[in-house]
């Protein structure tokens, strides 16, 4: 059965090409789950095309957007249980005392929350959001009594406003200078992170305070803390040197497939939907392929958004606790001054690997929903000319995403393996949310 699904996905990708997710053809009134799919297709574009959207920022937006959709559906007479009381500081949401058209309310809520989250995007994104808002509202209102439309829109907007108000106090609402502080005291030990590029804006590290943000389902930012990385040493016989040597040797001996893997999971900010968007794409594909109903759509998207958001908080807390230098810095100092990693080294401390943490967290949530042996094809980057990759399970995909950072030359093995462990810890909190009444 799983193989059949993979073949179906591959066929869809071939047909849809650069527009892999659900589209509104000319159907007058899309189903509510089609509304969700359509909005998420735009959201992943906006993640890519909004300059502030580094991976942590993207994960936060995806969490709040997912919770908004979830709570709209939960508040309109479905079997979903509100996340109030399960995620930090979310107070009870408005309930609909009167009849509500779920599709109209959902579209109205998405319009509000997406425009708020991406209010800083460029003129083309603004235009696209407005087009989506206007055209979607028109379609959703088709055949619905005007007074029902009005009260449904009001309800959707009130839920969105409630979530947005809640979002303002988490510590991540304001991101300036694309996340790079204008002043910062770099560490002064040999092991400390130092800038790795000649990009002026990146001489200070990205979002150094992100680890202090309020988590969603995770009890606290350090709830999934990690042991320190291997002791820093410049001794060629040390474990630390051996890790650096492994990165160096791996990059020097990359096979074509390893290069493909590194680039497939590179997920660079502003050139891709970022790592959390990558996993969102995987989930949207699976939902579409499985013919999931609206309840399952919003359940998956909310919990996945929470998982990746909490993962970045946990990961960033560890990164700035340990403040470790990148492989390129160490290797150029002690092994080969001309070393060039395959991927651009991200502008923040090394330990642990963010992609590893958030991929493992995502895999835990998706595995909790669809099981340990859910085979799928990942076509996130088909429109960039990268063929889809096949995986036997979500954890297999997460493991490859993590290892890709070694191939890319941007992480030591400890950051990868412990990042995965951290992500599994984080993901368990999101997966454990009680979503059904």
């Amino acid at each position, binding site marked *: 059965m799983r193989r059949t699904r993979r073949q179906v996905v591959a066929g869809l990708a071939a047909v849809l090409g*650069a*527009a892999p997710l659900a589209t509104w053809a000319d159907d007058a009134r899309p189903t509510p789950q089609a509304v969700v799919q359509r909005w998420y*297709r*735009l959201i992943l*574009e906006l993640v*890519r*095309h*909004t*300059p*502030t959207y580094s991976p942590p920022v993207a994960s936060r937006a995806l969490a709040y957007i997912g919770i908004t959709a979830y709570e709209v559906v939960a508040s309109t007479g479905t079997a979903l249980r509100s996340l109030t009381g399960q995620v930090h500081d979310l107070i009870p949401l408005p309930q609909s005392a009167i009849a509500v058209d779920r599709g109209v309310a959902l579209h109205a809520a998405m319009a509000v929350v997406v425009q708020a989250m991406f*209010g*800083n*995007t*460029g*003129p*083309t994104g603004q*235009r*696209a959001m407005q*087009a*989506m808002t206007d*055209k979607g509202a028109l379609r959703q209102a088709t055949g619905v009594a005007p007074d029902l439309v009005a009260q449904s829109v009001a309800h959707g907007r009130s839920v969105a406003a409630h979530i947005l108000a809640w979002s303002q106090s988490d510590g991540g609402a304001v*991101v*300036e*200078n*694309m996340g790079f502080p*204008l*002043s910062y*005291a770099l560490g002064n030990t040999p092991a400390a992170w130092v800038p790795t590029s*000649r*990009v*002026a*804006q990146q001489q200070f590290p990205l979002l150094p305070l992100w680890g202090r943000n309020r988590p969603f389902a995770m009890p606290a930012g350090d709830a999934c803390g990690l042991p320190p990385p291997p002791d820093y040493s410049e001794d060629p016989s040390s474990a630390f040197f051996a890790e650096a040597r492994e990165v160096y040797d791996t990059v020097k001996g990359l096979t074509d497939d390893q290069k493909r893997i590194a680039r497939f999971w590179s997920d660079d900010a*502003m*050139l891709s939907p970022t790592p959390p968007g990558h996993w969102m794409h995987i989930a949207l594909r699976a939902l579409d392929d499985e013919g999931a109903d609206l309840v399952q759509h919003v359940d998956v998207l909310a919990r996945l958004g929470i998982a990746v958001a909490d993962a970045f908080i946990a990961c960033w807390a560890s990164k700035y606790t340990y403040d470790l230098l990148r492989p390129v810095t160490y290797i150029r100092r002690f092994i080969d001054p001309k070393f060039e990693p395959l991927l651009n080294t991200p502008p923040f401390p090394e330990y642990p690997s963010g992609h590893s943490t958030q991929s493992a967290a995502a895999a835990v949530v998706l595995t909790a929903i669809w099981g340990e042996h859910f085979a799928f094809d990942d076509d996130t980057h088909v*429109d*960039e*000319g990268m063929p889809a990759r096949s995986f036997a399970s979500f954890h297999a995909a997460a493991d490859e995403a993590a290892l890709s950072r070694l191939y890319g030359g941007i992480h030591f093995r400890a950051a990868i393996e412990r990042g995965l462990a951290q992500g599994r810890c984080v993901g368990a909190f999101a997966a454990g949310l009680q979503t059904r009444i």
Partner: protein
Amino acid sequence: MRMLVFVLMATAARADDMVIPQFADDGAAAGITSVYAGDWQYFVGGGVAVFDCNADGFQDMLLAGGEAPATFYRNVGAQGGALAFQAAASGLEMDAVTGAYPLDVDGDGIIDVALLRVGENHLMRGLGYCRFASANADWGFDGGDAWSTAFAATWEAGATWPTIAIGNYLDRDEEDFPWGSCTDNWLHRPSGDGFAPPLPLTPSFCALSMLFTDWDRSGTPALRVSNDREYYRGGQEQMWRMPPGEAPALYTEAEGWQRLRVWGMGIASHDVTGDGYPDYFLTSMADNKFQTLTQPDAGPPLPRFADVAFARGITAHRPYTGTDLFPSTAWHAQFDDVNNDGRADLFIAKGNVSQMPDFAQADPNNLLLQTPDGTFIEAGDLAGVASVATSRGAALADLNMDGLLDLVVVNRWEPAQLWRNVTPDPQAWAGVRLQQPGANRDAIGAWVEVRRADQVTRREITLGGGHASGQVGWLHFGLGDAATAEVRVIWPDGSTDDWQALPANAFSTLSPGQPPRPYSRP
């Protein structure tokens, strides 16, 4: 922070040794009122063409107006006087113009103008006395129907008509999901006394600047294309190999080309490093790039470039004055010597795309002066040109023929600005114009070399690049404190003149095999 303080102190020390140019705002007095207007389809573009269309030596201007008609300004100033222009009917006053580039298409000795538009592009034939009319039909030029945002021209070996590249942006009808809808760029090659149907330069990635440039000094220019990564899928910066008579082909990674993805908005080229090869400044958002060829001494060069913007002090990534410290947005860039010290300086036009709050709203234009060690220091505020208007296209040109480069900047939603260079006690200079018989009269593709003492300044004559802005006419060379200088020209056909004396503090016309002819106003 210690490092930052040191850099600031070092910069201040170097600034003491530099000639800081001084500019006076002549815009209002000179009668410049043109505004680059319009909404979504005009958030890019906004160019200016500078050219002499009445053969008086003084440079006239055409400013793009976006949804409003373009405005032609005749230069009515006096040599050495305040800048003075007069809006005049010229036939160039089309609406939907995003940019403009002057060139003598048909080799008749009268400048023509290419108009980039949202809609049909036009080649406007010069009729003399600054009158123009569309020659699309007569020249078989297919102006298409696209959102055109980039232009470059060259004369391929043996050709008597130019090859024109047009860069196009998004599919403007794609409202819902415009990303990935970049439309094809076009290559218009000549055919007889006109043009063949345009050849699509596929793949195209939303070009905002194009430049034919002889990057490896092979004698055959390639086409560099700077693309806006905001909109492409699988795209990158590009360079097309352009063998005459053959189909263009992209340089590949196997040939040494390195993938670079930026919000490419403008290209400025100049041999800043003095290695004999052009260097390229690429404008973008936040950090800008400055590329220099990495191995010019190791056999035939590969198209591999190192980004030395940081080392040279020209990342220009955020405002340098005022309280707005968000990242910058850069558009037109141009290397030229604004203080006549013999070193190319760098002007960058800055301006928010369209009220993007993550980027600087008050984003001052840059005027970066090159120091003797090849690094640059910011002097826009000291020079008086640190405008925070929403700038797009621009031109440095000696508009009053006093031996100092003036500055015109096109702004979105606000009137264009015009500054006169009033630097006191200017150092020596030379104004040079190339003129060859027959086709390619302005010698696009030539190299001009100016030698003073033991220094040689080399300059490739190109037509394109910048942001929607171009110029043909006087070339400006600062001579510093040199009392004499020499010049030679490597003409587009490869023939090279002998070194000959170049009159200082004077305008001269150079033609193949002839001594410099002094300019005299008709």
